[in-house]
């Protein structure tokens, strides 16, 4: 993996590398299109994502959307670093959702080159793009996606740095030509090219016109790490000032002249259709303009949102449940267990003697499961759409892929891409919910607007609709077996797990165990599923790291030592575990009722080890006191921003571990709002310490990797205190009692 990435940076060796570098830099004729789309007077694009103005200001155009992860600061840091720009003269803008700013090819090249995959092997966070065939309309090229913890790793490493360095090289060439000196005699600093020998200097603004005429080189020299002045610094985030005074405009805040509001009720049973609805009473209610029947839902359009909501609640729609009206969580669980016991298991990987090796040691065996989860971002799904008299469509919404959203709207409206304008707005949380493939709210808004030509309509999901019409983190069951040799170390590892899709590479363990068999049992259900912060790692992290702990206890060994003994070939993983353990005081005494658990998982190129300290009270009440984290992501572009992502991942994961559970009854989701889908608040927030490890490894993701090891670290800590092994989440379903010690 590392080799491939380095090769790409060194000059496009290999086909994937060539694709990436080739994409990262536009030929100069495309600059005019970019200028027309996104340059203000006095500004000029010098290459992808970089504009330079006559006053030397550099504007970095970010081809991602903001959902709070700090990429509007981290990505510009990377470009500005290579461009030798002074941070006070750097501005940041969102790229318009247009193909010329797509990051799809970049992401694709990145994914294919680092994961050793073929184009048909789409990683989980992008799977919906393929499942929902809009790819055939817009093409994979039309992704501007923000997900998979990929912004810094793909756009940053392969795009922003190259763009910054290439622009610097072009500016130097332009200055050297003016002065009639060799480019090698010129240096750059603080938005200027300098010629030390003659004492001359020129600002970037004076050079940009000339510079844009040079073709960008595919492999401009990149700065060595020790020369960094911006990357690796905790620069305050550029998006924060507008987020403390209420002036960030999210999708929910769109205001258009003459705008109406829409409230929706979607078939409670997934896959259900609207059979009929009597709209008469609703139509007489104050402010109601129209009752719109859609395929799977009924929508009320009114002059104000609360009036639309009151009216939609007053309706009594009749649904056709498409045969799914009897499904329950218990029935799905029974299907999981039957599938895992059946002989339809599909081989994922086998090493050594596989499952046969189980006979070679003492058997440890357990079945784990995790429930469906809703994303529940703070901002419920919403979208504003306007069908114009000229037959074009204008759409406003916050999604994790502006270009993909535009392509999707084109598809559902039957219009060509050029007839659809899409305004990408900041999101009040994404966590995977707003990725392409999961755009039900866009489709419903577009269809509602279609029924109201000439009028902008803002469709807002209530929290109930949001929670009951999500694409859920799947409910997954795993049947694990290990065989322990005479020394207590495992000689065999067998993991059979359910999937509603294909095999998950996250099920492959990092530990050195000679004989392994990993197999899948496909259990399709009618419940729509999708990527939820850390995707497949969110369940495999819990299964694997809990079961390793079980094996350690069965072997009567310290769980930290047990893991270390299996990580001979993985020094970075070992170092992360050791640092977390050291900082948490692993092995030092704690008061009665308190205990620690440890877990470590690598996802999205980042290794995270958590040590969690819990206290179980006399009555069984559980408190999560402290989480100490050690994180190796190679290098953090913005360390404080990176830490914030790990803190956030810990809280998000803690909410799920403690309380998160979507259950199905009569084919529909039971939970509807925060009282029955409780989440962590300040009172449940542990002390959190995050320690970043710098290594030479390629940059890892920030947003997701903090999630997977948290639940197992908690469960392992609970075991340490109570002797009770938690094999099913969430924790709220378990009664804890203090072990008699």
């Amino acid at each position: 993996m590392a080799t491939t990435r380095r090769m790409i940076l060194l000059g496009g060796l290999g086909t994937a590398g060539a694709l990436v570098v080739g994409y990262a830099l536009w030929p100069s004729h495309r600059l005019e299109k970019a200028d027309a789309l996104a340059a203000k007077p006095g500004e000029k694009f010098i290459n992808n994502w970089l504009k330079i103005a006559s006053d030397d200001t550099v504007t970095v155009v970010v081809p991602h959307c903001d959902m709070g992860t700090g990429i509007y600061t981290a990505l510009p840091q990377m470009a500005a670093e290579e461009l030798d720009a002074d941070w006070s003269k750097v501005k940041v803008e969102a790229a318009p959702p247009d193909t010329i700013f797509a990051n799809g090819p970049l992401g694709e090249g990145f994914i294919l080159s680092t994961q050793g995959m073929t184009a048909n092997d789409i990683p989980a966070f992008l799977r919906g793009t393929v499942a929902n065939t809009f790819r055939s309309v817009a093409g994979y090229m039309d992704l501007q996606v923000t997900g998979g913890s990929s912004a810094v790793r793909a756009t940053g490493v392969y795009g922003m740095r190259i763009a910054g360095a290439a622009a610097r090289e072009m500016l130097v060439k332009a200055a050297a030509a003016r002065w009639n000196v060799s480019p090698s005699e010129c240096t750059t600093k603080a938005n200027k090219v300098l010629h030390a020998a003659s004492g001359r200097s020129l600002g970037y603004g004076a050079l940009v016109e000339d510079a844009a005429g040079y073709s960008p080189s595919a492999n401009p020299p990149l700065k060595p790490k020790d020369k960094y002045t911006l990357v690796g610094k905790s620069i305050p985030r550029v998006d924060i000032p507008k987020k403390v005074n209420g002036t960030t405009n999210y999708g929910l805040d769109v205001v258009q002249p003459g705008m109406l509001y829409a409230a929706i009720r979607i078939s409670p049973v997934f896959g259900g259709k609207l059979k009929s609805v009597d709209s008469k009473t609703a139509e007489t209610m104050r402010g109601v303009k129209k009752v719109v029947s859609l395929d799977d839902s009924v929508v009320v359009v009114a002059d104000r949102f609360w009036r639309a909501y009151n009216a939609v609640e007053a309706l009594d729609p009749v649904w056709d449940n498409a045969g799914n009206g009897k499904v329950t969580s218990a029935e799905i669980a029974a299907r999981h267990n039957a599938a895992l016991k059946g002989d339809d298991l599909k081989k994922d990987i086998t090493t050594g003697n596989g499952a046969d090796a189980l006979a070679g040691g003492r058997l440890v065996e357990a079945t784990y499961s995790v429930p469906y989860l809703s994303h529940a971002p703070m901002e419920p799904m919403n979208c504003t759409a306007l069908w114009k008299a000229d037959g074009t469509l204008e759409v406003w919404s916050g999604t994790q892929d502006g270009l993909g959203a535009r392509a999707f709207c084109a598809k559902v409206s039957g219009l060509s891409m050029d007839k659809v304008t899409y305004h990408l707005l900041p999101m009040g949380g994404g966590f995977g919910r707003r990725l392409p493939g999961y755009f039900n709210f866009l489709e419903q808004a577009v269809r509602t607007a279609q029924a109201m030509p000439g009028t902008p309509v803002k469709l807002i999901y209530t929290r109930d609709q949001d929670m009951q019409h999500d694409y859920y983190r799947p409910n997954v069951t795993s049947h694990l077996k290990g065989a322990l040799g005479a020394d207590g170390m495992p000689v065999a590892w067998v993991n059979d797990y359910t999937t509603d899709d294909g095999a998950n590479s996250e099920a492959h363990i990092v530990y050195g165990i000679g004989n392994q068999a990993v197999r899948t049992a496909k259990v399709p259900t009618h419940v729509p599923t999708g990527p939820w912060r850390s995707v497949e790692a969110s369940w495999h992290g819990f299964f694997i790291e809990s079961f390793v702990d079980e094996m350690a206890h069965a072997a009567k060994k310290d769980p930290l030592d047990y893991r270390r003994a299996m990580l001979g070939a993985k020094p970075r993983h070992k170092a992360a575990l050791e640092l977390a353990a050291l900082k948490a005081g692993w092995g030092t005494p704690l008061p009665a009722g308190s205990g620690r658990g440890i877990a470590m998982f690598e996802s999205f190129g980042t290794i995270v080890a958590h040590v969690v300290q819990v206290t179980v009270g006399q009555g069984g009440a559980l408190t999560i006191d402290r989480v100490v984290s050690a994180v190796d992501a190679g290098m953090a572009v913005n360390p404080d921003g990176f830490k914030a992502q790990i803190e956030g991942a810990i809280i998000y994961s803690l909410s799920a571990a403690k309380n998160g559970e979507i259950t199905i009854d009569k084919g529909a989701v039971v939970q509807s709002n925060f009282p029955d889908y409780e989440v962590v608040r300040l009172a449940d927030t542990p002390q959190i310490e995050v320690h970043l490890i710098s290594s030479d490894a390629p940059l890892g993701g920030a947003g997701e990797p903090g999630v997977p090891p948290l639940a197992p670290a908690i469960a392992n800590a609970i075991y340490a205190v109570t002797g009770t092994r938690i094999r099913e989440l969430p924790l709220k379903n378990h009664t804890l009692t203090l072990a008699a010690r």
Partner: protein
Amino acid sequence: MTVKLKINGTEHVLDVEDDAPLLWVIRDEVGLTGTKFGCGIAQCGACTVHVDGNAQRSCVTTVGSVAGKEIMTIEGLSANGLTPVQQAWIDHQVPQCGYCQSGMIMAVSALLKTNPKPTDEQLAESITNICRCGTYPRIREAVRALGEKV
């Protein structure tokens, strides 16, 4: 059906139902969008505003119940530049997506007026707003830092 609301010092005479939710009237009628919708049932606090100086969840507050009272939104709080709470939010880099933060800042500002130096426990007891991005550790730090300045 006329309701008189005093929002951020300005009187608004509005033709709305008595039982219309304050949140949506602030947003859709008055056009102040800094106050957010999160749950609609006073669970999450994204819609927190001040009514006569106290934090109140506007999604379940009917306009009839606050007619004539002093209502303040995040826009009103920010009218004269950043307050110390907002500055602390920047200093501690609190927001992530930022969506909950209007409500969070309104709730914390109201608390600090009556208790400028809350303990962690008092803070947690009083501030029950939800932040799905998980900015709680930084909120706690920011409030501790504000308390130290008292």
